[in-house]
């Protein structure tokens, strides 16, 4: 048994069906559990975070497993994965695990093995100086920022993902390696509204955003697209059939109706939206997924647009830190960012974070009415006084 070195391997292009195996599914998980996991499967009694990035799980049998969690760019080369394997072989009997948020977890079955592992992980750096395996991402801190492909590998992004995440993660590195926030803060990033990253329920979400309606590639649209599908793709009915002066089938777009969702481009490559000046970043905040204390909730748009200032997105970093700092200072223990904002009132959120409230932040989509404040319960802020002044309510 060995991997093939033939150019086409075991595949025979003349008879594609020959020896084809299908529907195997994934490999079974059991074989990848270290013995301490296999032996205590379903028998865990409790766990504890011993220090940021280090957990112990204790079994009913008394067995313990220690986990060291390391941040990782989910984008990796085989060389980096081989280094992970080297560490896993050295300390963990060849086992390693990845989390949903792209952390790398090394598990050992005794405290003695822990120190050497941690020391080794901390010592490894890329030649540029960054850590290869920073330890952290547990408890009341900021864990790894999940993200999408961005310019590295996607055709619809409105910004880049890996660079923005690197820029933010560098600035939030202390919060990754500590647990002094009121509760966990989940930061997520998606490079367009398709949200492969499903960032819509994150404490802080960074979202790539187009602001120019599609350009229509009239010359080719009728060849490369199913025009009716492109028209049907628009959720606001802004696209309708049209003809070019030469009589070719094409579409026209009511630009003022466009909300830049990009669904038309997904369906039709002749309708690109990307634009250097138009594209940028939206920040959402206050979402959560857990049912703990309060039900899960969506993130809200709190910064409508910031420029794609590559490679380090200073404006995005600044506003993320504004939010995180105000939260860290003001929230109660166990209170997630969105619960904090609701407790103090969103009007106070903007005041405390020092973020401007603009008309873009007021919902005007389908369920908008449910977001309007139909009560006299509110707190006075400068934004409220501005309104009062503008309408002659006060001098």
């Amino acid at each position, binding site marked *: 048994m060995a991997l093939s070195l033939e150019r086409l391997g075991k595949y025979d292009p003349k008879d594609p069906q020959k020896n084809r195996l299908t529907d195997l599914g994934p490999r079974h998980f059991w074989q990848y559990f270290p013995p301490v996991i296999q032996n205590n499967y379903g028998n865990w009694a409790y766990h504890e975070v011993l220090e940021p990035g280090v957990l112990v799980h204790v079994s009913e049998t008394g067995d313990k497993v220690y986990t060291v969690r390391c941040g990782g760019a989910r984008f990796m080369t085989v060389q980096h994965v081989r280094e992970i394997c080297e560490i896993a072989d050295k300390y963990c009997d060849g086992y390693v695990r990845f989390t949903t948020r792209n952390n790398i977890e090394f598990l050992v079955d005794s405290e003695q093995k822990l120190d050497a592992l941690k020391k080794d992980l901390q010592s490894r750096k890329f030649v540029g100086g960054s850590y290869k395996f920073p330890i952290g991402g547990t408890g009341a801190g900021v864990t790894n920022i999940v993200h999408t492909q961005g310019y590295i590998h996607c055709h619809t992004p409105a910004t880049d993902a890996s660079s923005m995440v690197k820029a933010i993660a560098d600035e939030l590195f202390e919060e990754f390696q500590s647990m002094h926030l009121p509760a966990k803060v989940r930061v997520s990033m998606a490079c367009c509204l398709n949200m492969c990253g499903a960032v819509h329920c994150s404490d802080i979400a960074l979202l790539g955003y187009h602001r120019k309606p599609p350009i229509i590639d009239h010359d080719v649209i009728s060849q490369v697209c199913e025009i009716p599908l492109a028209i049907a793709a628009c959720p606001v009915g802004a696209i309708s059939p049209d003809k070019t002066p030469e009589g070719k089938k094409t579409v026209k777009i009511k630009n003022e109706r466009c909300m830049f969702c990009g669904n038309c481009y997904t369906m039709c490559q002749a309708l690109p939206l990307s634009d250097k000046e138009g594209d940028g970043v939206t920040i959402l905040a206050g979402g959560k997924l857990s049912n*703990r204390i309060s039900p899960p909730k969506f993130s809200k748009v709190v910064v409508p647009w910031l420029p794609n200032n590559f490679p380090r997105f200073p404006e995005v970093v600044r506003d993320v830190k504004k939010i995180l700092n105000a939260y860290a200072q003001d929230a109660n223990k166990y209170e997630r960012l969105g619960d904090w904002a609701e407790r103090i009132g969103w009007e106070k959120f903007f005041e405390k974070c020092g973020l401007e409230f603009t008309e873009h932040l007021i919902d005007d989509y389908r369920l908008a009415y449910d977001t309007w404040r139909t009560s006299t319960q509110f707190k006075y802020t400068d934004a409220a006084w501005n309104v009062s002044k503008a309408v002659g309510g006060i001098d």
Partner: protein
Amino acid sequence: MPFEPKEPQKEIKYSEMRIYTDEELNNYTEEELKNFKIKHDIPDLEELEKGPWPSFVSDAKQGALHRRKLADDRMLIDRDVIEDMLGQLQVSFDEGETHWKHGGIVGVFGYGGGVIGRYSDLPEKYPSIAHFHTIRVNQPASKFYNTDFLRTVCDMWEYRGSGLMNLHGSTGDMVLLGTTTEQLEPIFFELTHELGQDIGGSGSNLRTPSCCIGKARCEYALYDTQALCYELTQYYQDELHRPAFPYKFKFKFDGCPNGCVASIARSDMSFIGTWRDDIRIDQEAVKAYVAGEYVPNAGAHAGRDWGKFDIQKEVIDLCPSKCMAYEDGELKIDNKECVRCMHCINVMPRALKPGKDTGVSILLGAKAPILEGAQMATLIVPFMKAEPPYDNIKEFIEKVWEFWMEEGKNRERLGELMQRFGLPKFLEIIGVPPAPHMVKTPRENPYIFWKEEDVPGGWSRDIKDYRARHKR
């Protein structure tokens, strides 16, 4: 205890499978790496080598150098793929636009998904990434690996692809980034024949299911998330690979309401562990928490003085249904009022455990914004036992799919279809009785769509009868 795979799993030994020698794997020095410049000018990317967080640029550069030093016959696609990828990324920063074309249709024979076509729109400038397709590899449940498997994948992927990957993609797959059309089938054959490993979902398929760590290392797991994830993935291989669906469909499996795999926000069908008996209380352990002998919240707060643990303030007062009391040194829970939010258990894991009569709640219809706005999953089945062979779950899944395949429009997610039909009609079609747990509140508007059979006498009336009673 272990769930048995349907077919025996072939054991993979890297020593037997490997392509590259140790010398080849360590073919550059630290010094060479420090001085290494790729063939394109990438000032913005090099800026991203600074700072403490792992630099994907530094990693990519070590991959690029490694490739540069491999012999010509030790890789089947262009040596320069990583360098060209980085070069194109710099140009994307300069121009503020991506340079990947709208995908083309590529794939492996007989499968409707798992491979995503990707082409550069600057192929003259970056010829080695002119084709740069993605392959999604179905990860093992909860993403445990051994190094034999990982190293074997690395060798195969370095030999037949770019050596770039995601661990993991957003849906959960191991993602192999960048190979040519020619290598797709050979890679598929290597994966299936040598690695005993299938590819994942994409397009209008059942997408690769994923689950939390579950019973493998979590005391909160209320059902066997890996087992259910594995079983359904295997059972629905056809749906995963051969699209018969209006659009994508995602299963995700969370072992408890803490929701670590985000099933409630990200899956068309979300399975979340729950229980129906009482929370188990170890009163001695409660006292130990109160006395400060145990660290609260499993030690998740540290490095900041939040004061002494206050069970009233930190547990009782934060209970969403206010069903707890701490009186005379004893913790009391009115379990029939409990909404199982997990907070008290999370704060005092050594004292409190969920009940033992466990199962899943099933929620339906979550999705990201496209097309009509994001949805979270809606609670439909309050409690269902989740034991192998999971026939009750499969039956429910198929009822939902039957409706969706019948009525769903092209690219209409389940949640959108539910909205279009309305929850009452949806429930009627899938044969689930209505119940108040499905809604936050009953309707506020009185616009009830009565059906003709609801109303005695039906809807056919004669205006003459009416006018006999009522003069115009």
